């Protein structure tokens, strides 16, 4: 497949999308992705072999601390990396088609149509000086220039209703600053869903919002994706968000996936010391009155990453073996699917609980 790049005809939005891998394969499959960033004349590896996949209609969480490379993964999949970032290896397969082989013109036809992205700060993602209708309509007309204005408008209204915005007619005429944060994020979601994409990549879209609004939006996103069988890759630093939302989860640390599996399996029986640390340090899992658990130390700066397992300096179970790179192993989960892991000294579980 690698050897036969598909030549794209730019400008036509959906007509020539390869459907060979169509319904059977995953919508998005990232394979051994390496991305470097140029920092002060040096190429610093930010992603070091990320592999993940999102199936049709599946909701997948990508969890990690800030700086772990989870946003870079999302941006690379959209081919929206900043100029100082470059792909050093691997593939990004969208419906079986390697996006890294295509030019930006081809990507432009895909983006906003077949794959969409939502960002963290709703205050910043909408252009402050353009009206909502301008910003919504352009997402349609850029892909379907022939669409009559009335129909486009109607689709915008429908999308707004779907994400739970009251009085959508009036909202179309407003500017972003006249709306609340939750409302703005709903509009961003509506824009992302306008063309009923196959995949939405959501980069911490609820982090900047109130907890109650966050819960509402999480619920609505889940419903919408289920209804339209849209695949959703949800990037977050918050495990509790993933717990209620996703089918599967990937845990990322310093540019690598360290553990993955179904949400139930990974959250109940975390095997990687980092995943376990993350779960234990979430306030909800803390016994009242006891001091909060905290993973010691800080995530390494990419340029000063230790050799071998990057989590080694912070890990309670690390020994000399961890100075060499751990190999990914995979097990069958209880509830079906794989549980993958990159660790020399994982936690082990019996029926009664943790065995060590």
């Amino acid at each position, binding site marked *: 497949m690698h050897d036969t790049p598909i030549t794209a005809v730019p400008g036509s939005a959906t007509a020539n999308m390869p459907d060979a891998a169509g319904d059977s394969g995953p919508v998005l499959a990232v394979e051994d992705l390496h991305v470097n960033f140029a920092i002060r004349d040096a190429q610093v590896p930010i992603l070091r072999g990320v592999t993940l996949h999102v199936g049709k209609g599946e909701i997948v969480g990508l969890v990690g601390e800030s700086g772990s490379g989870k946003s870079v993964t999302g941006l690379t999949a*959209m081919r*929206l990396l900043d100029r100082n970032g470059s792909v050093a290896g691997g593939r990004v397969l969208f419906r079986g088609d390697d996006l890294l082989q295509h030019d*930006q013109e081809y990507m*432009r*036809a*895909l*983006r*906003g*149509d077949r794959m*969409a*992205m939502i*960002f*963290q*700060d709703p205050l*910043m*993602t*909408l*252009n*402050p*000086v*353009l*009206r909502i209708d*301008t910003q919504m309509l*352009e*997402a349609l007309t*850029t*892909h379907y220039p022939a669409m009559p204005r009335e129909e486009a408008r109607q689709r915008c209204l429908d999308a707004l209703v779907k994400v739970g915005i009251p009085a959508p007619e009036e909202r179309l005429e407003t*500017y972003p*600053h006249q709306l609340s944060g939750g409302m703005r994020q709903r509009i*961003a979601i509506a*824009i*992302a869903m306008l063309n009923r994409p196959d995949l939405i990549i959501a980069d911490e879209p609820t982090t900047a919002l109130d907890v109650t609004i966050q819960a509402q939006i999480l619920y609505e996103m889940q419903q919408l994706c289920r209804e339209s069988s849209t695949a959703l890759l949800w990037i977050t630093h918050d495990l509790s968000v993933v717990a209620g939302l996703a089918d599967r989860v990937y845990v990322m640390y310093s540019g690598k996936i360290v553990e993955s599996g179904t949400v139930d399996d990974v959250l109940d029986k975390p095997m990687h010391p980092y995943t376990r640390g993350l779960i234990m340090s979430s306030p909800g899992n803390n016994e009242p009155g006891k001091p909060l658990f905290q993973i010691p130390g800080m995530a390494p700066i990419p340029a000063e990453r230790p050799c071998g397992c990057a989590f080694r300096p912070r890990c309670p179970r690390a020994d000399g073996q961890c100075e060499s790179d751990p190999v990914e192993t995979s097990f069958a989960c209880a509830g079906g699917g794989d549980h993958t892991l990159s660790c020399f000294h994982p936690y082990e579980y019996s029926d009664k609980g943790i065995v060590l």
Partner: protein
Amino acid sequence: MIAYLIRRFWQTFITLLIMSLLVFVGVYHIGNPADILVSAQATPEEYEMFIRNMGLDKPMWEQYVTFLGNLFQGDLGNSFVYNEPAVDLIFRRLPATLELTFAAMGIALVFGLPLGIYAGLKPKSGLTRCIMTGSILGFSLPTFWIGLMMVMVFAVWLGWFPASGRGGLSHLVLPAINLALFKVSLVIRLTRAGVLENMLMDYVRFARAKGLSETRVVVVHVLKNTLIPLVTVLGLELGNLIAFAVVTETIFAWPGMGKLIIDSITVLDRPVILAYLLIVVVMFSLINLVVDILYSVIDPRVRYE
């Protein structure tokens, strides 16, 4: 909005009053205009008569009150030199100055905006380095010197354009370019900074994620955000151009009000100096007001209450 306008007019009025008082007191203390205006051969009687006719024998406060009283009737006194109303004198020369400043502003925008946008979009390219270094040099060229050099090269040596005076387009070319040079650099720098800043914004990323073409991202999304703050600065720069026209008008013998004020300062023509100042203050206030209103029209986030 109405309340806002009233407040603005009130502020302008106060500024005018304070400026007129300061300048009146200042000008009052610099020598006696009679010493310059009355010929050396005049008899003491003639000298006395001149002083009385001009009202120069009265105490300062009385002169100021008279001045204020006349001011409200739109009378800023007669020029000592031309012996006609100072206001008429200035207004007759206003069109020439405005012609020059608007032409200069136009030139600054036509060259500055595209270069600034390019420099902002391609911050690392070699051409950008040239543009930016060029703009520093533009900032550093003394307007009056480059004016002289322009006269020398294009008027004296090449004979392409007339060296002085006002007339058709050919007369306008050299002075307008001369006045614009400094502003081209300014427009380049402001535009570049705005584009650079906005290109890093999340909304640009989101716009790209929608699949918009890069042209639309730049022209519709980035440019509008860049140009809005630029309007304020350029509005204020228009005032600056009017003031700096003094230099250009002197070099190219352009019959505007800048030339008039320089001549009036050298002969201490009090009424003209005062009238020029007050008219300029009013003009600046008007420009500021127009800019503010324009700003509220084009920037949806701004509303004046």
